[in-house]
């Protein structure tokens, strides 16, 4: 078996432009089962574009992506297909529909049906309780309330619970703790460890380098739309990482 034979995800020189602006010139990395990789870079370096390609939101202009060794057909490079493959994202702004309730948000894009057209509300509520219990969220009073009536922490739980529940293979977290206090941050980090133990890989975008060193196995730097080869966190010091982020210096 080749080195990449065990890779869960291989991203090979993907690129993306928007109206002549190169948001990502070339992005490459691999990801193994149960691994946590941190993607770091300055604002506008191309981190978001890279993860949105992995999530299927953007179809890359060039390069290719393999999941479990199988190349993703560019024609099927969609969110639905990536979600079908077990890839989920927790967006920085949580990406919830504010006027809908918690079950609807958890089942966004995959509402269970009865007789083909009806919402299976019973199944949704049941599964929602299960997910919230797994997350040890007890403070959600009503599953019928719009999610905008919940606290920020509860909304965050729903967004993370959604990704963990459906993301069997890869969960992408975009600045998951930027807006959280220490207790909630600890909770999110505990969940990350929990899902890696079941074999799910995690892609973490974070500006908090302390957190990156604490959680990640490997680090991927994006600078001016280019990725440098990912390295184990033990290979760098904090200063070296900062220089790599700001100046694009190669890490040995």
């Amino acid at each position: 078996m080749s080195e990449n034979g065990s890779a869960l995800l291989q991203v090979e020189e993907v690129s993306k432009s928007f109206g002549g602006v190169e948001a990502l010139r070339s992005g490459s990395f691999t990801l193994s089962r149960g691994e946590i990789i941190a993607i770091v870079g300055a604002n506008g370096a191309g981190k978001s574009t890279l993860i949105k390609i992995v999530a299927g939101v953007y179809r890359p202009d060039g390069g290719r992506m393999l999941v479990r060794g199988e190349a993703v057909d560019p024609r099927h490079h969609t969110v639905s297909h990536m979600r079908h493959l077990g890839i989920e994202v927790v967006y920085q702004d949580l990406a919830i529909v504010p006027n809908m309730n918690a079950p609807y948000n958890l089942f966004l894009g995959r509402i269970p049906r009865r007789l083909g057209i009806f919402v299976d509300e019973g199944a949704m509520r049941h599964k929602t309780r299960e997910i919230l219990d797994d997350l040890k969220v007890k403070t959600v009073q009503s599953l019928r309330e719009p999610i905008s009536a919940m606290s920020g922490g509860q909304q965050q739980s729903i967004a993370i619970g959604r990704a963990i529940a459906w993301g069997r293979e890869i969960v992408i977290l975009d600045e998951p703790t930027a807006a959280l206090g220490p207790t909630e941050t600890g909770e999110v980090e505990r969940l990350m460890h929990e899902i890696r133990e079941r074999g799910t890989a995690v892609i973490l975008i974070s500006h908090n380098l302390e957190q990156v060193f604490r959680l990640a196995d490997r680090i991927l730097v994006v600078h001016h739309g280019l990725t440098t080869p990912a390295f184990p966190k033990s290979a760098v010091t904090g200063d070296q990482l900062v220089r790599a982020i700001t100046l694009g210096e190669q890490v040995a």
Partner: protein
Amino acid sequence: MDASGEARAVRGELLRNNVPYIAIVLVILLFTIVSGDRFLSLRNWTFIAQQTPVLLLLAYAQLIVVTTGSIDISVGSNLGFSMYMGVLGMVWLGPAGILLGILSATLIGFINGSIFSLLKISSFVTTLAMLIIVRAMLNIISDGGSIYVTEQAATGTYVDSVAAPWLLALGRFPNILIFAIVITALMWVFYEKTVFGQQLKALGGSERVLSLFGVSVTWFKIQVFVAAGFMVGLASLISLGRSGAGTLRAGEQFELDAIAAVALGGTPLTGGHGSVLRTVVGALTLTVVANGLTIAGVDPSWSRVARGLLLIIAIAISLNRRRIGVVK
């Protein structure tokens, strides 16, 4: 959001939810005081029960679209056009030809949705253009003439007509009311219990989030207008039965009444929420106001002024200002 902002939002929501009921009670009280028995008579309320259903079904079409945060101001033209196509279909094919009307309305919905969704032209501009185009098409196809629905086959060929007593029967009380109640029940199930209905509200809440999670928003938005068009088609059926003719001017300005009924039903034009039952109340309120003003002897022009003001008041209450930063 701070606590007082939250409390204000809850109060606003509560007001929006209950305004329809308060409004109709006030309106009925007012006209009872002004016109007494003439307004409260069984005969008058039978008349109201006959008059509300067409508006109600148009309001449902509007509700479907408005829940997503869009608007359809072509429903009046669409109604007139599909009424004419329905009666023309019956001239060509017999009773089954009425389906041509429903088909036409659905097709116009499909065109609305396609222009709006694929060309990314705002629903207001799209349906405004369609309001004009569809009415003009009706003029072209009908050549300015009318086709009448009659009880018996006409002998002379002086006037275009088609015999469809069953359709005229459908347009009369209580059949028209029963029809409206059945459609209301189906509409409620569709709006509250189906995946499609839930998605209408979600689209009104955040289109961006739906696309991020793999919902095909482009296709869904077309389907929304198709569903609204189909509802206009159902309205054309009872409207034909009631008025007994497909004419050039049928349905003119009905789009405003349909929007007003939805807004009076407390549905914010900004989308995301809505209620079938409150839309019933909204449509009823509008009909009762028109009826009450007529009975009170108010000049029809002044009656229109009153209904225009009612539209503004209804929208002022129903708009969720927290959702709109800038009004243009």
